[in-house]
């Protein structure tokens, strides 16, 4: 069972890589057009120190941005979930804010807080990723069936107790669904900042230096590294979902 769970994705990746390799080989594409998987490992190995160093920068700034998004998103979701007035007031603002492409916000943020690279990057990761969390929590709370509330309210339970015992756990599956989207978004946010406003830190900056030096295998290697980090972050969310909301899973 467990072997199957690990083996099948691994085989899928190997098949994908060999398909890619053959494609490049059959078409005879030069490196600047499309690097083959076999070119990537040397590129990675040459800059392995940088990969770990920059990868760590990207990783921790994404995680901090995501944590802020979780705290702020849950708080906002609670406010909107419990109060109709707040929901009506905040929803259009939120949708409008979310509709602004974050690539346009990056230079503004970079100008507002010149030199505060960590802060800027975390801020963009946060701004891009809190929306799904806020929406899912608010929908989860506002669609709570009245009977669920009544079984505790009829015993004289306070709003806080109802929230902790019923509303919060009942919203967890939706919350984790949103978190899976948010984790990828936060990651995109971090890299956006690192590429658009380069300051020599993070995988985005490494990508940028590959571009300036026309080191195409390096650029592809960065893409692959980003993919790996993304998978890593995503599966952290999947594991915590199993731990905290595993009950919502239906065996089929």
């Amino acid at each position: 069972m467990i072997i199957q769970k690990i083996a099948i994705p691994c085989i899928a990746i190997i098949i994908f890589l060999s398909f890619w390799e053959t494609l490049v080989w059959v078409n005879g594409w030069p490196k600047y057009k499309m690097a083959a998987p076999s070119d990537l490992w040397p590129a990675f190995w040459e800059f392995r120190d940088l990969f770990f160093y920059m990868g760590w920068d990207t990783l921790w700034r994404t995680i901090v941005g995501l944590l802020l998004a979780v705290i702020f998103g849950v708080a906002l979701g609670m406010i909107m979930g419990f109060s109709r007035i707040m929901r009506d007031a905040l929803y259009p603002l939120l949708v409008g804010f979310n509709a602004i492409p974050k690539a346009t916000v990056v230079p503004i943020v970079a100008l507002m807080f010149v030199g505060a690279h960590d802060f800027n990057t975390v801020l963009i990761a946060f701004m891009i990723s809190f929306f799904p969390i806020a929406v899912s929590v608010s929908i989860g709370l506002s669609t709570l069936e009245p009977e669920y509330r009544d079984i505790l309210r009829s015993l004289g339970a306070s709003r806080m107790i109802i929230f902790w015992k019923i509303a919060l756990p009942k919203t967890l599956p939706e919350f984790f669904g949103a978190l899976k989207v948010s984790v990828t978004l936060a990651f995109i946010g971090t890299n956006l900042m690192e590429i658009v406003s380069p300051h020599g830190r993070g995988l985005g900056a490494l990508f940028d230096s590959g571009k300036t030096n026309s080191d195409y295998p390096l650029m592809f290697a960065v893409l692959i590294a980003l993919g790996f980090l993304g998978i890593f972050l995503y599966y952290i969310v999947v594991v915590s979902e199993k731990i905290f909301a595993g009950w919502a899973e239906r065996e089929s």
Partner: protein
Amino acid sequence: MSRHLIEIKSVTHSYVTQTGTLPVLQGLDISVAEGGFAAVIGPSGCGKSTLTRLIAGLMKPNSGEVWLHGEIVTSPRSSVGMAFQNPVLLEWRSILKNVLLPIEIVPKKMTRSEAEDRARHLLSLVGLAGFEDKRPSELSGGMRQRASLCRALIHQPEVLILDEPFGALDAFTREDLWQIMHRLREEEPFTGVLITHDLRESIFLADEVFVLSGRPAHTQYRLKVPLSKPRQIEQLYRPDVIEILATLRHQIEIAQGRATGRSESMVT
């Protein structure tokens, strides 16, 4: 005579909606003796669930009074247990933990281990022994409803309010649960109010049946059930009982406005 534990005195209530006020209850009177069991029937949408929410103290009536144990109800109180048509069990808790939920809210009458023993006892009374550690999704609809009955009773409430708890079940499961209700009543000293759409259910379970009129509802008809205990399903096929069912049926038709006739109340 025995004193009344629940007394609803000329209660009037309306909802304020976007389209105006909707009067739901109009001078409703109901009383239930301590240890008694009342069934309330009436047309759909006439205000029966509203009545349960008033008794539970989840809302206050616009006028009139709801008395519980000699006190006017103004807010929820832990001496009430409730079960609904939807069993509303919490998916992330085992059956045992679901039953124990009220204990975590109400002021402690018993220790955790006493409560657990009591929960296991209640679960075995309703035929759920051995299912304590299962998740609600692993149980059938009837079993879930039985678990929700145990949850409603775990904190030894004085008053048990049931809002069509058997409405979604098939006929045989329902009759099964009727028997279980009687078994619970023998063991637990609660006073019950049952909302139902099923005339046979109202007669089988209750000591007294109240028929509400159409909206805005008042008590149109009341009937003391002349069945001896312990009750048997066979009693429902007796000619005199069938006649009572026909009377109730007729009263419901009057309440729905489909039939005309005197709506005489039996004097109590």
